[in-house]
């Protein structure tokens, strides 16, 4: 029938129509079946998939930042807790008249131009339902003022949240660190939407950073049904947040604060350890930033002041500061001599100078000490005694004892950046510099100069191990299973001799007389130290060595002190390191500082009373002094200030690194030249 020549009649056409109409009907039925099948596929086979998509369309999860766990001291007193924080956010989607709303907010909250430009940038980047922060840490008055005007401010959302609070302020800055909003990098790494939730902050330094996972807690969530435009329709349910764990420290908050105040105007650090357990009772580095202010965001002026300060307030000197220990290692070196079979009664004749080859090594006492044995050499801090012994034995015989006493060791403490210095010996020098060890190296090391570098924590461990003869390891978390420190297995006779030497330093007419305790019945033992950071040339020595007072701050000697009390039954060990102190102000020198700090543990009232008297001489307590300094700094600012770096954490470590390296390189130069300056130890 498909041939074109075929004649078609009306009847054939009717027949053809019926057939084709049937084909059409079948085709239509087939399409109908196909559509019904397709629908069945979507609604039955793919139902789960589309149900999920429909739910994720419908439900918007808003995270509620978790309350951070508290950090408390050994008695449960808060070191870091949370306070109610009033904040104001903007929901971009609901914002109607941006210029009007921002103008109103600027008036109500006294926003600066800086704030406004940040909010504008954030608003441009944000979209939809996700809040943009306007201001946090508002006073109740400002918060209420916004609340009253809400009907006039579409899109503005006042919220009550929690903010981190450090009751002790700067005194705990380097212990706790601070918190801040997550950086873009951190968000990239964790990919947790919590990190970009307004109001959420994470640890940026110190324990806050190292213990982040324990302190953080679990966020709460609010499930809200929203329209396609992000407009909330109703709350479905709310899961409360789970507060982070409370972390209990070995720190005694009272002592911590006391030590911080007692460090006065010094750029220094103090550590107090329990001689029996290694519990860290105080760990202070001053000056410091105010962690409360840092946690609210760091202003550019504040940053400029802190990063340029030669007292390095951004650095935790306890673990990041490396210093030549100076004479503080002499008791430990005495122990090394005893362990090497040197009799404590063997004498060396100190005539003020020792000639080794072409080098002349001076004692701090120009005329010399005359014939001197171990106990007096410790008490009087005679350099020639230790020079002679080191020259004869070589420092390789001292180094094992130095390590045994905890120098050069890295302690497992929850602080992310630690420098742990060097206990040098011939193998170490060969490896590091490819040069053989010299007698001069031994002589320098014998008085804690040269290659020997330690941090204040190690000095405190050394003092505690010498005092108690136990292999204590410093610890700061009280919830760790407590390991009673094992004995180091030292000869009790040796310990007795060293203790006698250290007792005499303070109580027997030695160099540390100013460390004598003002508390009846409690005697302290210790050892002073002076670490030189500059080279004294032969010509300078001939014309008279410059006094510290005549030198710029950065060239003055470090003042150090290690000690323990009570001397007959040691409980507490202390180390105090004061950068570039120069022994200029007696009350602010290391020995009385260490002594006062320990006295707090024996007679709190008396110690505090004494401190209050002393503070009058150096301009008041920490807060008062920080305020004075800040005002002076503001007054001195004329040039426009560059903005706070975007990544404060890494900028801080740059500042710290710079400070640490200058201190580290300065001292070996001075010592390598085999010359030793005057000191009062």
């Amino acid at each position, binding site marked *: 029938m*498909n041939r*074109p020549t*075929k*004649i*078609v*009649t*009306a009847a*054939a*056409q*009717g027949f*053809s*129509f*019926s057939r*084709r*109409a049937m084909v*059409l*009907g079948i085709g*239509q*039925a087939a*399409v*109908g079946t*196909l*559509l*019904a099948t*397709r*629908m*069945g596929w*979507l*609604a*039955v086979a*793919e*139902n789960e*998939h*589309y*149900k999920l*998509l*429909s739910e994720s*369309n*419908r439900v918007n999860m808003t995270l509620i930042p978790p309350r951070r766990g508290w950090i408390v001291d050994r008695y449960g007193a808060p070191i870091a807790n949370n306070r109610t924080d009033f904040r104001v956010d903007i929901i971009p989607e609901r914002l109607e008249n941006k210029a009007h709303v921002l103008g109103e907010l600027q008036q109500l909250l006294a926003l600066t131009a800086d704030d406004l430009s940040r909010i504008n940038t954030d608003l441009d980047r944000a979209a939809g339902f996700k809040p943009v922060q306007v201001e946090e840490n508002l006073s109740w008055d400002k918060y209420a003022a916004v609340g009253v005007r809400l009907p006039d401010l579409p899109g503005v959302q006042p919220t009550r949240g929690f903010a981190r609070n450090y009751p002790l302020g700067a005194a705990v800055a380097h212990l706790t660190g601070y918190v801040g909003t997550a950086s873009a990098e951190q968000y990239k790494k964790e990919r947790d939407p919590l990190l970009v939730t307004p109001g959420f902050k994470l640890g940026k330094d110190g324990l806050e950073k190292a213990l982040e996972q324990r302190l953080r807690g679990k966020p709460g969530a609010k499930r809200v*049904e*929203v*329209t*396609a*435009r992000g407009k909330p*329709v109703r709350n479905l349910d709310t899961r409360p947040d789970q507060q982070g764990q409370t972390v209990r420290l070995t720190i005694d908050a009272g002592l911590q604060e006391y030590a911080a105040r007692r460090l006065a105007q010094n750029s220094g650090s103090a550590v107090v350890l329990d001689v029996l357990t290694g519990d860290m009772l105080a760990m202070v580095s001053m000056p410091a930033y105010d962690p409360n202010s840092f946690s609210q965001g760091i202003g550019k002026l504040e940053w400029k002041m802190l990063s340029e300060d030669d007292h390095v307030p951004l650095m935790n000197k306890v673990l990041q500061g490396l210093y030549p220990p100076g004479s503080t290692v002499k008791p430990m070196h005495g122990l090394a001599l005893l362990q090497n079979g040197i009799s404590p009664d063997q004498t060396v004749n100190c005539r003020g100078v020792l000639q080794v080859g072409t080098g002349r090594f001076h004692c701090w006492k120009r005329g010399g000490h005359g014939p001197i044995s171990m106990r007096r050499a410790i008490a009087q801090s005679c350099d020639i005694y230790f020079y002679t012994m080191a020259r004869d034995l070589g420092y390789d015989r001292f180094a094992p004892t130095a390590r045994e006493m905890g120098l050069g060791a890295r302690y497992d403490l929850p602080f992310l950046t630690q420098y742990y210095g060097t206990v040098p010996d011939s193998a170490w020098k060969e490896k590091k510099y490819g040069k053989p060890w010299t007698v001069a190296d031994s002589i320098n090391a014998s008085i804690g100069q040269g290659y020997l570098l330690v941090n204040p924590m190690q000095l405190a461990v050394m003092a505690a191990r010498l005092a108690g003869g136990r292999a204590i390891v410093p610890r700061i978390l009280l919830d760790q299973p407590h390991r009673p420190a094992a004995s180091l297995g030292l000869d009790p006779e040796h310990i007795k001799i060293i203790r006698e030497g250290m007792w005499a330093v303070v109580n027997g007419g030695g160099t540390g007389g100013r460390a004598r305790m003002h508390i009846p019945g409690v005697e302290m033992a210790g050892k002073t130290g002076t670490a030189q950071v500059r080279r004294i040339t032969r010509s300078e020595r001939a014309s008279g060595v410059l006094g510290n007072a005549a030198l710029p701050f950065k060239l003055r000697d470090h003042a150090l002190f290690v000690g323990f009390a009570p001397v007959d039954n040691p409980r507490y060990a202390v180390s105090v390191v004061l950068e570039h102190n120069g022994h200029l102000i007696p009350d602010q020198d290391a020995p009385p500082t260490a002594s006062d700090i320990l006295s707090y543990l024996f007679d709190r009232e008396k110690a505090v009373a004494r401190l209050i008297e002393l503070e009058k001489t150096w301009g008041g307590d920490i807060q008062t002094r920080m305020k004075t300094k800040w005002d002076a700094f503001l007054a001195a600012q004329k040039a426009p200030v560059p903005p706070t770096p975007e990544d404060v954490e890494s900028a801080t470590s740059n500042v710290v690194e710079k400070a640490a390296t200058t201190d580290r390189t300065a001292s070996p130069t001075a010592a390598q030249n085999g010359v030793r300056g005057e000191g009062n130890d």
Partner: protein
Amino acid sequence: MTSPGLIPAPLAQLPWRIIFLVVAIGTFGLVVLYSAAGGSLTPWAARQGVVFFAFLCMAMLMSRIPSSFWGKIAFPLYGVLILLLILVELLGAVRGGAQRWLDLGFIRLQPSELMKPAIVLAMAKFYDMLPPSEIRKFGAIWPAAIIIGIPAGLVMLQPDLGTALMITFGGIVVMFLAGIPLRLFIGGALSFAVVLPLAVNFLLHDYQRKRVLIFMNPESDPLGAGYHISQSKIAIGSGGIFGKGFLHGTQSHLDYLPEGHTDFVFATMAEEWGLIGGVLLILAFFLLIRWGVNVGVRARTRFEKLAAAGLATTIFFYVAINLAMVMGLAPVVGIPLPLVSYGGSAQMTVLLCIGMLMSIDRASRKTVRW
């Protein structure tokens, strides 16, 4: 049938079964529109109800018109609509931008919409006039191509791809029923497959091309142009077998589903009534269309046969293209679901088709008394 004594003859002669079917579909549509408005008669359900029953009455009146009338007006109607299409095109050119309707004051007349049944009538009339012996000759094809080509081209210029396609399909179906050799359709289909990609690239507007490409892969752009199809599939798929329940659809009520009361009304319905509702609705349309095709089979004259089957197929194209679109089987071309989607034009067209079908049906019943 009802006894002649109680009810006047003209009423009794109405095809009540089909009217009931149409009312059922229309009423279900109103229920869906009521839900799409968030459980409210305004703004859609009430207006749609009034329009629907007005056009239904019109269709019932049309059923009383002698079927020969449709043959008489086929060409004049076609001619008037061509003029109106040109007028629309000119007005659009003057005012700038695309325009599809003429504002007559009381109604916005969309000539392209009326062209869908008019093309069927014109084609049916043409093949009715063509002597049977000519049907396999070239003279049976080129006039038809012109009859289809002019309105399709004008509508394409508007631009309205969906309507242009429907006009073309409507005309081609009448050609098929009229007995044009099959090989032409097979050859045409093959060349269409070749031309289609070229047409997509060169003839379509950017937004139309985008729609076609998105249709191929809607997930490629779920928040942009693929949003309609994605959200529609989510609505249908999440409805499951029994649906989320009347007034409980989230996709439509929370505005995720765009055009949930017009082109995508089927998705709104399926979300709340599930597969059951969907299959019942498809079945209802199938019955309606089968009736229409059967009217053609039963019709006495060649014109009536071709016109009836063609009009039924016009309704079929509405339903099939719309459903394929909302289920992600066809690109988004803007064809509403007749009797359900909100809007007057499509309803008017479909009820016009039904009215004419009832008129042809009545004629065939009168002659074949049983």
